[in-house]
């Protein structure tokens, strides 16, 4: 199922497909969020934003607005 990274529920895993914001994409790409990479939503901050994901073995925090520019496919 295709969605964006901000829609994941805690514990859900997804594969990164593409980005909708070119500038944001650069920042995320250099942090290892490349297309094909599997990410997992680990934590949502108490006020609902930002979120923390696991990507290539480490914990990355990003805002929901930033995560919504990442298009992903949910993994079962």
């Amino acid at each position, binding site marked *: 199922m295709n969605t964006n990274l901000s829609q994941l529920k805690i514990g859900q895993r997804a594969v990164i497909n593409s980005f909708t914001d*070119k500038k944001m994409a650069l920042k995320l790409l*250099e942090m*290892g969020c*490349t297309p094909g990479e599997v990410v997992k939503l680990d934590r949502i901050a108490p006020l609902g934003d*930002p979120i*923390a994901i696991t990507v290539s073995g*480490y*914990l990355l925090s990003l805002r929901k607005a*930033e995560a919504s520019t990442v298009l992903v496919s949910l993994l079962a």
Partner: protein
Amino acid sequence: MLVEANQSFVNFSDKTTIKVALVGNPNSGKSTLFNALTGLNQKTGNFPGVTVDKKSGFAKLNSTEYGVRGTEKSSQLPPPDSRLPANTITSEFIDLPGTYSLYPKSLDERVAFEVLCNPDNKDHPDVTIIVADASNLKRSLFLVSQIIDLKIPVILALNMMDLVEKEGIIIDAARLSEKLGVKVVRVSARSKEGIEELKQALLQPLSVPQYNFIDVKKIAPDLVEKISSIIKVNSDFAAFHTISNFPEINYFDKEPEKKERIEALLNASSVDINKLQSQETVERYRVINRIAEECVTRKTAIKTESFTNKSDRILTHSVWGYVIFLSVLFFIFQAIFFLAAYPMEWIESSFIFFSDWAMKALPPGELSSLLINGILAGLSGIVVFVPQIALLFTFIAILEDTGYMARVSFIMDKLMRKFGLNGRSVIPLVSGIACAIPAIMSARTMSSWKERVITIMVTPLMSCSARLPVYTLLISLVVPDNKTFVFFNYQGLVLMSLYLVGFIAAMVAAFIMQKVLKSRERSYFIMELPVYRSPQWRTVGLTIFDKVKSFLLDAGKIILAISVILWFLSSHGPGSRFEAIEKKYENPQIINNYTAEERQSKISSEQLEASYAGMLGKTIEPAIAPLGFDWKIGIALVTSFAAREVFVGTMATMYSSTGNEENTQPLREKMLAEINPSTGLPQFTIAVGFSLMIFYAFAMQCMSTLAVVFRETKHWKWPLIQFVYMSCLAYLASFMVYQVLK
């Protein structure tokens, strides 16, 4: 430098000094390695981007210490020449800000980018040591791959291997070295393993990577060719990088002709540089994934919940997260107020002791007065803050080093964002309750320039500890002690409200500045949450030493200068006014009426009125009259500019009281008895008291803070704006309070 015929090796053994740059991701242990290599002070932390300023240190690399030079086994290397004289090479290590890539996106990344990419930069290194966090290998290799393609001599320091091996992951360092074509040294910066090997590696001939990690010509074939004809580059990637980052590069400003040609080239090709960058990144990670597959083996999948995960469950919990954060804050402030109180008292009493001694030992005169009332008083005003600064930074360094600070930012970001701030602004704001000086210094951890400047600009509105003596005195004057509201003491409530008012003002000011300040930078919260680790006491110690030193030296100079100026203004007056006052009190009738002590305090009080400072107070009286202040308060406002707590001391001199800051009782009584000559009623009414408290809550009356703001922003504009906006705010707020309560 000895460059071999095939251009692929560099040898530094005939140089006396070499420049070594340390680069790496934030949290890769780069600063810890820097400390281990040089022993010089350098702050390290778990907080991304903690090193904003350039730090450098020196170390001697003695080639004889390691026996025969050139023990490298690889057959590719030239034969070791053992006949070379054993010499000592000094290497200068430059600790570059932590960066994830060579793209200059934030200000600190720009520093790393400029130093490495611009061969004309004065810090451009002979060798670059890339510190890679083995537990984040792929992300580290991204930066490695970019630097390899710049074709500069590189050593890869593979850090935190112990951490990786604990997780059952094995990295084949030899194979990695072979695949990357660069020397790989295993180090543990924390336990100082591999440091000697790393130093030795610097002495041996280094291969310069001759292959391209990725072929950028495939991404932008024509452009790379064309740009190479305009500027001299030694790699395709340098040419490509110049194109893809052109808007960010400012070292062509000196060569407008080249700049124009590149601009024309870019316009003609209508290439999307964002796309070039993302293609480059994707391609690099593709190669990196392949290399990682060959060099990394996962022994067993140990699936126990990690310590970090367990801790985060509690520390970022929707209730416990905030409870713990508030408890930590509460603990820190209690500690700062109570633990620092003792050393502060010792410092003050030793200064008093020393002044008393100097007063007796030195002959009376100008020079002694300058030494005692100018320099010694100024010095004590600086040194007395050292315990608070040291304590605050101990706690902050521990919180950063363990990785907790990143979590605080994580849970606070959404709240702070509404006010133009960032999750990372929380720490400076909170520290501001102790003292704005270390608080402003701690804002260095913020990567967005705009958010950092806003944080720096509003932090002094948080009520600092120097306002406390002022508040205490004024509250005791105008707020009844015996009344309670429900079961809260009125005095305590007023004090709490003053802190609250400061916080609200800071938030409102941030909100307004967010609208006013223009910045091309976007605000990001893309931030690594590092794994929890125990703090390193050595690093914490070095941090405290560094902060205290920079406070004493940099801010201290300015406080001292202002103290000397204030001393001059308050102890000198035009013409022979001072002598006239002294003569007046030599009248035998007066001598009989007063004790010697009373007479002396009357003289100093009248002399203060006649002094330049007194004249200044009289001059500004019309301006401050609408706030309910007379010329005496005016003098206190002027002298408070050196530091707010000077208010109490100045008032004490003004009312020729024998009380000091610790015991304000006699001063309080004299202030209570003060009659306003125009109304015939007490001078310190509720209106005047509150107006004055509000003035102290908002006004920028701290020279040291302005000095630190200048040092941190590197421009006089910011302290100036800060001074003006806070003073205007203080004036308006005081005016309103006085006019309403009058």
